[in-house]
């Protein structure tokens, strides 16, 4: 029996070609001859409900994401944004509702109905997940190069020299000195650890990356550098991102669209600058007006 091999950019292993998801609703006022980005949705969910005992974590939440775009989910603690991220990425099943993902071949898959091996394979190849605390994702007793190379090796890469060159190239892209490739992450600063996590996640060119407060816990100057790095890489590689953050400035910088959550509900969503410059919902207005500007 042969080892299931990883073939990026073609069929995701282990997934059956399934039901096609719901079609895009017709847009009002829109000339049907012109298609907005032209592409089909990459990830979409509707009717998500989730309770933890008496606490409502998600209340009738919907979301959609197209290839190459950045969607920010903004809210304060307890808003449900991290829960939503975990449901969208398949880590937490909802009580009701479904999350659909369209693979590179164009087939739609119900994320929570996928067999566990398929979901794990997805997370190792087409998907990425940047954790708030990089130590949760990195192997602290493996060298920087080993950390960056792991996804390559998991995908079947077997040439030491190539793995090492690729790792060094990625360290350079995330602005870590390539000479640190053999150093342990225990010798890295917080900002460097986060950049290392990003390198480790992007090395297999995922199409979709989930980010949970990527700048949380970092010094302000370090945050600016990291945000700029994320912005550049995402734009250059055409990665779709679901970004959970409480930092509105980060959302404005990175995201084209955003959703505002409060108490498990989406209170407002739309174009990022429109939501931030012309907030409609009382909570959004409160959130925007509370941001301190230097």
């Amino acid at each position, binding site marked *: 029996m042969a*080892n299931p091999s990883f073939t990026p950019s073609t069929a995701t292993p282990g997934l059956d070609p399934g039901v096609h998801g719901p079609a895009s609703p017709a847009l009002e006022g829109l000339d049907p001859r012109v298609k907005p980005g032209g592409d089909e949705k990459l990830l979409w969910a509707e009717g998500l409900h989730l309770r933890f005992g008496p606490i409502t974590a998600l209340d009738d939440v919907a979301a959609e994401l197209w290839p190459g775009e950045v969607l920010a989910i903004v809210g304060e603690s307890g808003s449900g944004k991290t829960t939503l991220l975990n449901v969208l990425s398949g880590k937490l099943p909802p009580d009701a509702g479904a999350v659909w993902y369209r693979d590179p071949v164009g087939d739609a898959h119900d994320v929570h109905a996928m067999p566990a*091996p398929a979901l794990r394979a997805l997370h190792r190849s087409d998907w990425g997940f940047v954790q708030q605390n990089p130590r949760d994702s990195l192997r602290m007793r493996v060298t920087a*190069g*080993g950390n960056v*190379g*792991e996804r390559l090796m*998991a995908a079947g890469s077997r040439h*030491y*020299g190539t793995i090492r060159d690729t790792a060094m190239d990625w360290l350079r892209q995330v602005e870590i000195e390539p000479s640190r490739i053999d150093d342990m992450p225990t010798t890295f600063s917080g900002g460097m650890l986060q950049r290392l996590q990003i390198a480790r996640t992007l090395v297999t060119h995922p199409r979709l990356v989930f980010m949970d407060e990527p700048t949380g816990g970092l010094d302000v100057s370090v945050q600016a550098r990291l945000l700029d790095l994320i912005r550049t890489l995402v734009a250059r590689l055409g990665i779709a991102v679901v970004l959970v953050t409480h930092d509105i400035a980060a959302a404005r910088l990175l995201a084209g669209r955003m959703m505002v959550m409060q108490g498990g509900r989406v209170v407002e969503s739309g174009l990022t600058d429109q939501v931030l410059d012309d907030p409609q919902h009382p909570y959004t207005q409160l959130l925007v007006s509370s941001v301190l500007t230097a």
Partner: protein
Amino acid sequence: MTGYNFAYLDEQTKRMIRRTLLKAVAIPGHQIPFGSREMPLPFGWGTGGIQVTASILGPDDVLKVIDQGADDTTNAVSIRRFFARTAGVRTTTRTAEATVIQTRHRTPETPLREGQILVYQVPQPEPLSRLEHRRAETRQMHALAEYGLMHVKLYEDITRFGHVATSYDFPVMVNGRYLMAPSPIPAFDNPKLDRNPALQLFGAGREKRIYAVPPYTEVRSLEFDDHPFQPRRAPGTCALCGSQASYLDEVVIDDQGGRMFVCSDTDYCAERVALREAAE
């Protein structure tokens, strides 16, 4: 001999272990849990190997037992005598004559034939145990063939030492599917597992796992394309038989630092010496 079941184990236990062996042979390299029994020697002394041997011995079998390649160490002698008493089978020190060979820490130098069975004593059946302590995790990794972590370990070794630093119990891929621990045999012996005409069985008594490599199964040591697997042996010649190809033991012969190299496989060495003497 009365008062003992044939080869010590009761029929129910033998049946359970044989069923486990069948499963193991059906899934080459995959660890199958089994109800490891109390044996008249402590865990860590070969209880797994003994239980496997006890389950497959028949009255017409000829048994050889080696420990680090030698038939005459204490453990090899004790185990051989144990089976002579409880099964009444013929025993031998000659690899070519044996139908069942139980071994600890070496494979025989003499090539094996179809119909022979090699039983390995295994202390730690889980090849990923040092990298991932959680058994729930390693079970998932085997189930999903997620072996990236092992390659990370090889990568780290090459980065740190310039070569893979594992010299025994070197992990192998069996039949292109399962990662297996070949037991603490020297890496030098790994190539002998590949497409061996004999049936190879592995028993870990304390860890309660059995696994198997059927005859003619592909067994490949892990490697990188540009850092291929290179088995090592002491560069030297056997002082007794003159072999330059067998695995050598280094023996200190006096307290002035005098030493000599001899074949670790005593039967192989003795055969070669006998051949040389016959030629003279």
